[in-house]
């Protein structure tokens, strides 16, 4: 049984105002995919293709108009208990918007712990310290506020929060897209390490092909709400020649000036 299974998920947006109904917009159409435990699925596509909506649906935040989302065999929208939340966590793109600016790092990371686990204050404190070290920060930073951290550091705190309850799956919603080159590489390294040591599965939603390749085992491409390509290995992805991969490849910027295509 796969860890995560999407079956024919479709979703629409339509504003229902009091008296009038605005035109409906199909955001996702008949999307089906599976994810095995401990693997990373790269979900590629341009902005507006429906990737973020899919992310919200996977997190149990938005019920799709059609289709099922099965986690560990259980339909997350049909079950009354929200216990599955313990095992599905998230890291968002903008770390500053993903944390409550009025809370300390310690309080931010502790939130899932206090919600899902019964820990004594000492055990909690130890766990928080351990998590900080695991993501490359020090326990003394637990008392600091978000504005005292850089983007890269705050994203590490968000990652600490995401792994706090030992989840099985983490949704990475453009998790490295807002970081500069240096931090992007470091965070990708961290995510890779955590995946190995903790046996995590990822759904890596991104438009950045190179980042996806650095972390993913399998790839799918989403275009205008539909799944238009599936590539089971990194090799098959890098060797694919269909139009969608071509489009992605053409969009990638040169690494070295001798490969530049925009300036002659």
């Amino acid at each position: 049984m796969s860890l995560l299974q999407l079956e024919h998920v479709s979703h629409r947006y339509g504003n229902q105002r009091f008296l009038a109904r605005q035109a409906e917009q199909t955001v996702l159409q008949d999307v089906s995919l599976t994810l095995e435990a401990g693997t990373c699925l790269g979900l590629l596509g341009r902005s507006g293709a429906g990737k973020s909506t899919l992310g919200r649906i996977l997190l149990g935040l938005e019920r799709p108009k059609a289709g099922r989302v099965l986690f560990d065999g259980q339909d997350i929208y049909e079950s009354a208990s929200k216990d599955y939340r313990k095992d599905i966590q998230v890291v968002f793109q903008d770390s500053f918007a993903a944390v409550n600016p009025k809370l300390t790092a310690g309080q931010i990371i502790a939130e899932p712990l206090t919600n899902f686990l019964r820990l004594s204050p000492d055990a909690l404190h130890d766990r928080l310290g351990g998590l900080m070290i695991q993501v490359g920060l020090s326990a003394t930073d637990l008392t600091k506020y978000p504005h005292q951290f850089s983007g890269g550091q705050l994203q590490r705190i968000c990652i600490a929060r995401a792994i706090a309850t030992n989840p099985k799956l983490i949704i990475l919603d453009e998790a490295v897209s807002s970081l500069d080159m240096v931090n992007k590489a470091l965070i990708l390294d961290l995510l890779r390490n955590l995946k190995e040591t903790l046996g995590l599965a990822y759904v890596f939603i991104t438009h950045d092909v190179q980042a996806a390749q650095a972390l993913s085992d399998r790839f799918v491409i989403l275009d205008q709400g539909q799944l238009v390509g599936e590539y089971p290995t990194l090799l098959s992805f890098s060797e694919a020649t269909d139009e969608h991969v071509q489009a992605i490849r053409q969009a990638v910027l040169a690494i070295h000036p001798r490969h530049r295509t925009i300036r002659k």
Partner: protein
Amino acid sequence: MNVPLGRPRLLDRLSNQRLILIGCSVFLGLLFLAALAAPWLAPHDPYLVNLAVKLQGPSWTYPLGTDQLGRCTLSRLLYGARVSLGFAVLIFASSLLIGLLIGTLAGYIGGWVDQLLMRFCDGVMAFPSLILVLGLVGIFGPGLKQVIIALMLVQWVYYARMFRGLVMTLKEKNFIAAARVNGSSHWKIFRMHLLPNILPPLLVIGTLEMGWAIMDISAMSFLGLGVQSPAAEWGAMIHEGKSYIRSNPELMIYPGVMIMLVIASFNLLGESLSERFGVNKQSK
């Protein structure tokens, strides 16, 4: 890092912002204390009529003189502060709480609940607030209690709208989504995530609104609809003093200056608070 862009600020012209914050807070604090301690501070009974000493100037017995019925002006000012300030706080606090509850509910739940509540608020806001208050007082009859209820009923809709807007903006931020993913209940989200982020704007609005509340009470009393004589209240004192504007203008000036000082202090306090909280601690 927040890059400081050149932009003119009002308070720069008035020198140190912190000084203003402290100054206003001290002044208002002392005034509140004085109002509370009125029974002990006031040299005379504010209701004591003594026609023999009417319309006197400042003296040792009567530091600010007496009014047309021989009552001590200073005592009446002090007791008046209790009414003006005390009830302003009452109106402000209660309408704020009602507005907070309803606005947050509307903003967070959304959908038809939001639509229903907001259409109701629209209806109330369609009337100029003073007219509405006058209308309500006309129905209830004149009196301080009636004025307070009327003001409360009218004021909360503005707060509701404001909190709804704030909550709707916050709701979109990913940290609310993250809280849900982290398993927090709606109540916990409200308590831990929404409230603390709504509070700073609330403080700023609060100080400015207090000024308005005082104005409203004084205005109603001036019109003869609020406090009924012989009760002491600043607006009412102006109302009574206007007949003596030629001979004893100080009867109007003292309460008038008090109203002005208090409202100005609240406004300056509000502005300096908004400077402090205006730049959000978030870098992006």
